[in-house]
């Protein structure tokens, strides 16, 4: 039954995406672990970690597409949920260091010893347990989104106003996490991780497992998001995107639908952050930077808003381009390219890569919930 819920109405695009990610999940770790370094098909560990990072971003993009593409909530603060999930994971990894830190304190992380803290702050309790930390990865972003959304949607803050206060939210968190007194490592954040559930974070096998886990979570995130948008609830959510007032007049509690989608999306972003941290090896407050959140929006816009698959595609494409661009002589021009992309996509490709390509081929079996450009607001 769950399978039916998750796979109902799956179109070819969805199957291609699932197949691709599943293949990546199996082939990339295998080629990394089993093939000799000299082989043409061997994937270096660094490449695998890089792609792991891209796929985390893809999950973040899917979570944003869920709220923006299907519910019309342009969140400019989704990076905050990503970073909070990352911090929850980072706190678990910090506690796993134990007495192997520079100062050798069995309880306190290095930065706390450095700041002369005497005991662990209460909000660090429990993070030595993996299940608890994973619960927090979901609960902290989810709770923040729930509280924030509960206030915002109930009082009908919409459109540009909502975008701006989500930006203010992540900005406030950025400032807060920069403070040393907060107990999250301040400017430097959390880093120098050793173990994750007993395995060395740096080890090749652990990295392969993390990569596979990221693929699994991406698939799960995609299926959940898809399950939501094709369900009856999803139809209401899309109606809210297209004509919020009309939906309200029809008797739907618009704020509750929005709140549900927003919270689910925040949890998903938190998971993406949690997978991101062990693969990148650091989490610091710059993840809260409003610019990051806006960049996430552009991934979704480029890939194709309201398609889920497109969001993931956009995240991978843009980040891959970023890696290519910023590592060569083109580095100074990356921001030009990124800025140009923002303008180009909004002006000429409102449906993104996927939507445009789809139009171009001009044959689809069913009008699945694709990227309709947001209609003019009903006045």
């Amino acid at each position, binding site marked *: 039954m769950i399978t039916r819920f998750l796979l109902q109405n799956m179109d070819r695009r969805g199957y291609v995406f699932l197949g691709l990610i599943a293949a990546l999940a199996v082939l990339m770790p295998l080629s990394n672990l089993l093939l000799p370094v000299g082989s043409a098909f061997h994937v270096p560990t660094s490449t695998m970690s890089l792609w792991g990072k891209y796929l985390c971003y893809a999950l973040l993009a899917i979570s944003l597409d869920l709220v923006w593409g299907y519910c019309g909530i342009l969140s400019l603060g989704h990076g905050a949920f990503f970073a909070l999930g990352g911090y929850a994971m980072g706190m678990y990894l910090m506690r796993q260091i134990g007495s192997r830190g520079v100062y050798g304190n069995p309880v306190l992380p290095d930065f706390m010893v450095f700041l002369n803290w005497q005991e662990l702050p209460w909000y660090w309790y429990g993070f030595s347990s993996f299940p608890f930390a994973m619960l927090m990865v979901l609960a902290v972003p989810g709770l923040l989104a729930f509280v924030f959304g509960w206030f915002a949607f109930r009082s009908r803050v919409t459109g540009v106003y909502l975008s701006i206060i989500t930006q*203010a939210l992540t900005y406030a968190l950025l400032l807060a996490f920069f*403070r040393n007194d907060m107990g999250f490592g301040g400017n430097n954040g959390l880093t120098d991780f050793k173990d994750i559930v007993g395995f060395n974070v740096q080890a090749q096998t652990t990295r392969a497992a993390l990569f596979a886990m990221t693929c699994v979570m991406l698939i799960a995130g995609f299926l959940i998001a898809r399950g939501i948008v094709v369900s009856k609830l999803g139809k209401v959510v899309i109606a809210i995107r297209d004509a919020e007032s009309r939906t309200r007049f029809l008797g739907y509690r618009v704020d509750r639908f929005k709140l549900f989608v927003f919270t689910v999306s925040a949890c998903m972003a938190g998971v993406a952050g949690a997978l991101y941290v062990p693969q990148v090896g650091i989490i610091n407050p710059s993840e809260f930077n409003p610019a990051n959140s806006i960049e996430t929006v552009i991934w979704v816009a480029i890939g194709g808003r309201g398609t889920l698959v497109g969001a993931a595609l956009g995240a991978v494409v843009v980040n891959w381009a970023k890696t290519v661009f910023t590592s060569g002589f083109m580095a100074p021009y990356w921001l030009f390219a990124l*800025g140009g992309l*923002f303008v180009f996509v*909004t002006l000429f490709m409102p449906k993104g890569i996927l939507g445009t390509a789809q139009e171009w081929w001009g044959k689809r079996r069913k009008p699945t919930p694709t990227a309709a450009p947001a209609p003019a*607001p009903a006045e």
Partner: protein
Amino acid sequence: MLCLLRLLRSLAVAMVLFAPPALAQSAEEAFTRLNADSFSDTARAVDILIATAHPQAAPIIEALAESRLLAGGGAVVVRTREGGFIDARTGQTLPAQPAGLSPVRLNNNLRRVVQAALGGLGLLNPDASKRTLAAEAVFKSRDVSLLPVLEAAIGKETDAKARAALRQAQAAILIAKTDAPPFDRIAAIDVLRERGDQDALATLRSLPGDASQALKEAQTRAITEIEGRLAVWRAAQNLWYGLSLGSVLLLAAIGLAITFGVMGVINMAHGEMVMLGAYTTFIVQEIIRTSFPGLFPYSLAIALPLAFLVAGLVGIAIERGVIRFLYGRPLETLLATWGISLILQQAVRTAFGPTNREVGAPAFMSGAFELGGLAITWNRLWIIVFAMLVFASLLAILRLTPIGLQMRAVTQNRRMASAMGIRTGRVDALTFGLGSGVAGLAGVALSQIDNVSPNLGQSYIIDSFMVVVFGGVGNLWGTLVGAMTLGVANKLLEPYAGAVLAKIALLVLIILFIQKRPRGLFALKGRAVEA
């Protein structure tokens, strides 16, 4: 040892002061002692010179401090800084260096004596402002040995300000002087209470522990009063900082408010318009520096219209080139303008480098003055004035000009305005140009108080958004109230919470406030279901 010396010296000064007939003879004694080539005699000579108020005392002691005082064979000669020679007794210029002279030597003790003497000399300086400065120095040093000189100076003082300063210096010395008459010391506490600043507080606290009960009570009363007064001044100073911050926010946000009000789009590149204005100022100053150095005092006046034009034209170009294709899609506009802001930032970074560029301040913008207990810098004051001027002129444009009328009409109801024959497209372009131009003006002002770097705009954009969503877009007063409220609230919170926490608290408060009034303080009233 030093205390003993000082005591001796003050005794000597006192003796001399209260023995007027001996004056002429004593002055001669000073020159004899300068010839004696002994440190203690030299010190004594300095005291005598001051006490007798010898007409040449100042040049002689200054020369002594700089090892330009020569003595030998009964003669004392000052070598001037220019290399000439003056007879120390009479002040007459000598034709050539007299033979057989050697510099009067100094040691550390003597240097201290000489420095104190120079302070004392200042008290007798013919220039009233110099006397005031010298009195301030004595107030800080609380040098007991200068008390007699002070008293003599107070007796002769005619200038009210200098007199007050002298009396405060005297009071500062008397407070710590346990053998002074108790009545005088209570009067001294009173004088300090009237002065009422941080220094007076520190001086009052230095009252020795063995003071009498009455004295201690007077001290406690005075300290309480001063602390109360200082707290009021501190609050006033914070209020001032708040107004200053508020006017900066007003400058940065007001253009944004206009475009948001008329077109319903948020221009994420607004901060970059501010940055363009600042860089225009930089370029204007560079050209002035290299080609027309005489024009530097007018550099800001020249930069203002240019910044307005540059930013305004870029704004119109953005509107015509991008934004007009995105009508009815405010969220896409937001993304596109963010892209433009990235491009502009990177363009400026490529052209001018990533580091801060130096923008100079004309003379009228630099320096500070004190108003009661307030320290007010001129640049902040001018920026407040400038912000108010910009605000008033925008208000006038919106109220009194045809284009202002059209803007207001479009703000209230775009379709209706269009139906009445207003070319809304043109209004949009002009509005965007105006809003961007005002941002350029803000850039000129901000170049005076902030770093001119490619990131200049980024640091203001979020605060500007906050002002706009807090104030609402119904009219400009909302922006004024919003900016001032945020500025003042920020600065009043800072002393209790620290700069960062104050800002976080404010952001959270605004997020909560938006729940209560989703359209800001001064929302437009209308019948639209959604906007």
